[in-house]
């Protein structure tokens, strides 16, 4: 009678199996941790978003109140100059003068219908003046910025254009500035917060479509009935058509 021995498993195979099992265990553990973290982060994002909305509504209400008070007292109240400008390139790349070309490159407006957010200060105002016939710009509302970030938001990660699909991405890059969700990003951009530069730079330039309903005519300025240059609050209407 032949005694049936257990089949001998080679040592290297045993080691391989134990290694694989250990890796699997570590991975499931990591998954559980990640899930817990995700739930906590979602709650945090919810609370933050609510706060941002409240702040925004409060600031709008304040403006309205100020305006009303001024009207009642036959006084003047001027809204503070907007801190953020949205610029959209409306003229193509051919026959672009070198100075204009380099300024547009600095603004990241290299492609037609690309849009970027720019801080409003003396330096940028002067730059915009030089490239006015090539762009249209104005003062975006919070809602416009929100729509841009959500629908056309891509991140510059490791020099690649990666879609913004999860708050985890934002937390990874901007967590050190206490910016952890999309609403934080929108607020920072809309109110030109202390980390506007970092947030703006993390975002790839917004690549918009051509406007539904078209431009008026690109050859003259907005003031003259055309399209280029400063169109202040009306930029929001245009962006909605290009989104």
């Amino acid at each position, binding site marked *: 009678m032949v005694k049936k021995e257990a089949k001998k498993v080679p040592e290297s195979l045993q080691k*391989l199996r134990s290694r694989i099992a250990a890796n699997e265990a570590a991975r499931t553990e990591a998954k559980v941790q990640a899930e817990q973290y995700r739930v906590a982060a979602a709650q945090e*994002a919810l609370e933050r978003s609510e706060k941002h909305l409240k702040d925004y509504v409060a600031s709008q209400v304040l403006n309205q109140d100020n305006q009303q008070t001024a009207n009642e007292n036959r006084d003047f109240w001027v809204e503070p100059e907007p801190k953020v400008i949205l610029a959209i390139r409306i003229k193509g790349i051919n026959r672009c003068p070198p100075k204009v070309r380099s300024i547009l490159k600095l603004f990241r407006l290299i492609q037609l219908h690309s849009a970027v957010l720019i801080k409003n200060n003396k330096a940028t105002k002067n730059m915009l003046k030089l490239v006015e016939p090539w762009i249209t710009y104005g003062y975006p509302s919070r809602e416009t910025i929100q729509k841009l970030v959500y629908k056309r938001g891509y991140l510059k990660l490791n020099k690649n254009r990666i879609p913004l*699909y999860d708050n985890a991405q934002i937390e990874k890059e901007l967590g050190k500035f206490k910016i952890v969700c999309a609403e934080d990003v929108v607020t920072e951009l809309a109110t030109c917060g202390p980390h506007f530069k970092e947030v703006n730079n993390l975002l790839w330039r917004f690549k918009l479509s051509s406007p539904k309903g078209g431009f008026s005519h690109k050859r003259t300025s907005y003031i003259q009935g055309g399209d280029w240059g400063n169109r202040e609050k009306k930029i929001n209407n245009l962006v909605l058509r290009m989104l």
Partner: protein
Amino acid sequence: MADTPVITVYDAQSSGEVKESVALPAVFTAPIRLDIVRFVHDNLNKNHRQPYAVSLWAGHQHSAESWGTGRAVSRIPRVSGSGTGRAAQGAFGNMCRSGRMFAPTKIWRRWHRRVNIKQKRHAVASAIAATGVPSLVMARGHQIENVNEVPLVLDGIEKVERTKELLDILTKYGAKDDLERVEKSVHLRAGKGKYRNRRYTLKKGPLIIYEDKNCALRRAYRNIPGVDAVSVHELNILKLAPGGTLGRFVIWSAAAFKALDNIFGTYSTPGVEKKGYTLQRHMMTQADVSAIAKSDAVQGVLRPIKIDEDEHHPKKQNPYRSKRAMEKLNPFFKLKKRFEILKNRRGH
């Protein structure tokens, strides 16, 4: 290395009786360099060519001259003379009928190739090493399923005088399958060699390597189709790796096998017969890459596989169209929408 591998020497006259055990000669552990073998084989294979060429004067045995221009004919040299149809016909050119060919072949074409001695020796060493690897021998096509051991070393095979005896020995040691394979492979040669005294082709069978240049074996193997025999002192890459393919089925005589260390040397001593020849060193001392990868030394310093999330991002979904996408970016949006709906309802 603790123990060198050992090869059993069988007694040729008996059937499977073990005569002695011999340590494996160092040549069998030489690196198997197919590139060197191919190169050497391709070049040395050219050395038994016979020159061919057209006649030196073919197409030029005329006093043809061009008629020049102005006679409404092409300027090709034309055959002189008259009274025959051949006169005035074009001559000499490769395009002319009966003209000389383009670039007539010459006998002083470089027919033969020389190869560096060291390369030749490395090639032979590689080829011998390959004959010791059963998978290579089988891959080359030899039927060695019933052969006891590879390399096959037989003592007393050199004394064999009769073809019948040799055939007997080969059968006893499992070479019959290979010989049958050769017999079945006899075919008419394709091409003109058929009527140039090379009528039939056949596959290569076993190669017997003997030591004594005057042994009786030299006549015994001749009439067995496919079998070659070669002295160990005159090993030939064309016989060891026919067609440049490594792994011929080799049957060693004991004397030849034992002489290998003297001829090729070992890794510690240079060869005597091949004066000053040292075997090639291996490119890798441990060639089993999967063993290296699985070893503790390597696995101990590896980190677990990291999936780079940046490279595996999903396609962008518009959060204003996809609730799932919005949930990931703004969990509050759902609530806000809800409030608005409720407010509108209350308003109405």
